[in-house]
């Protein structure tokens, strides 16, 4: 019978698995396998999301008239405020372009966006990832930045035919370059693996970063677009004797509450030399700070 030698089959499976793991780490050769399975896994994610959709639909049906009126009024007010801001923005943008031309630097490109819905959250507590309902068929590509209305959420790390996975900025394996909006101090913002907690790495004790500072993306690393809000500093602790201060931040985006996200389609070109200089800056600054402390 077929079950004659399961040990032999186990060996085949083990070898195959190890080869797959190695290939998945080192190359993109196994992408087609993943892509193929994607046709089978995406429906499960869609199905799992169905009850949420149904509840939301029901809530919308049963909303009262007064509530709708209220929300409409609120939205109208919001539109008014935003329109006023956009008026100023047009002038500022034109001015910015002119100044950039004077400086001979590349122009800010307007990024086009795609709206996607979140249909799944990673069940593994070790990983902070989301599944969205747009895939390769909607021109989603790996490395695209993902935002909500309040700020950056993460990046696309895996694309299936009908869905894609987004690595959140709070994942322990995630780090990105940010700068303080107030004064342009740059630092590396890393995830901690816990929802809504981020850390600034290698910030010298003397750096001018305070509680409440807004951190925006710098565009270095060429993955994230420049100038989007990412996080707000919630605590700064200085340790005497330590080279770096301990700075915690909270994402401006509501990572645990969003239901729709924006995918940014095109990137703004950034100049090369900046990228290489950046980590060195932080390290050098750290040494200075350590010397100063002694």
């Amino acid at each position, binding site marked *: 019978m077929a079950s004659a030698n399961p040990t032999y089959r186990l060996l085949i*499976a083990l070898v195959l698995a190890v080869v797959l793991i190695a290939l998945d780490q080192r190359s993109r050769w196994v992408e087609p396998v993943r892509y193929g399975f994607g046709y089978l896994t995406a429906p499960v994610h869609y199905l799992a999301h169905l009850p949420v959709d149904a509840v939301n639909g029901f809530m919308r049906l049963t909303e009262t008239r007064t509530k709708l009126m209220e929300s409409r009024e609120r939205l109208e007010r919001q539109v008014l405020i935003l329109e006023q801001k956009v008026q100023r923005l047009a002038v500022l943008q034109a001015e910015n372009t002119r100044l950039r031309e004077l400086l001979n630097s590349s122009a800010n490109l307007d990024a086009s966006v795609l709206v996607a819905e979140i249909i799944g959250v990673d*069940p593994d507590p070790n*990983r902070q990832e989301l599944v969205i309902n747009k895939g390769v068929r909607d021109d989603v590509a790996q490395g695209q930045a993902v935002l909500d209305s309040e700020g950056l959420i993460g990046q696309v790390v895996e694309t299936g035919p009908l869905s894609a996975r987004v690595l959140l900025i709070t994942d322990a394996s995630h780090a990105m370059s940010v700068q303080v909006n107030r004064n342009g101090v740059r630092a590396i913002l890393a995830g901690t693996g816990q929802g809504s907690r981020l850390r600034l790495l290698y910030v010298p004790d003397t750096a001018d970063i305070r509680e409440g500072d807004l951190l925006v993306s710098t565009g270095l690393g060429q993955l994230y677009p420049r100038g989007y809000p990412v996080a707000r500093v919630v605590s700064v602790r200085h340790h005497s004797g330590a080279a770096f201060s301990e700075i915690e931040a909270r994402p401006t985006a509501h990572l645990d509450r969003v239901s729709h996200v924006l995918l940014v389609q095109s990137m703004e070109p950034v100049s090369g030399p900046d990228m290489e200089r950046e980590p060195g800056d932080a390290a050098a600054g750290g040494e200075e700070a350590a010397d100063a402390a002694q």
Partner: protein
Amino acid sequence: MQLNSERPAGTGVILVTLVLAALLEVVPLSDNLDWVRPEWLLLVLLYWVLSLPHRIGVLWGFMVGLYQDVLVGTTLGQWGLAYALGAYFMLAAYKRMRVFPPLQQSAVVFLLVGSAQLLAYLVQESVGRTFYPPYTILYSAAASAVIWRPLCALLRWVQLRFLVR
């Protein structure tokens, strides 16, 4: 149990139970409940290995594991490895398993699920995607052991109702 000489039937039913398990695997839970989410796919797989060892074995385990990998976005082969090994252990133990009292069965399931998860954890560790310490997989293994008997009864009913053999 069905006789080995009978013609296999009900592969569709097996696949449906696996898809339902996959659904339970990704259905959104609160952060705290995620810790005790049983390994549904592995449990359903183990049941089918236990009851149809002549049909469902290591290679099924491997394929279901690969499916789980893509479903939860882990390194391709991580769960394939773990599930293949889980299925293999079950194949080696199914005769004893069938005569074990319920508590002992749950204990074996705890060990099987735990060792499969440990293997998966090691792979995840090696690619640098772990954050919590390894003992945290025990919660989910324990939940799997607790849910094993009821799940078994349910799948047994499904098997008899749809004549899977």
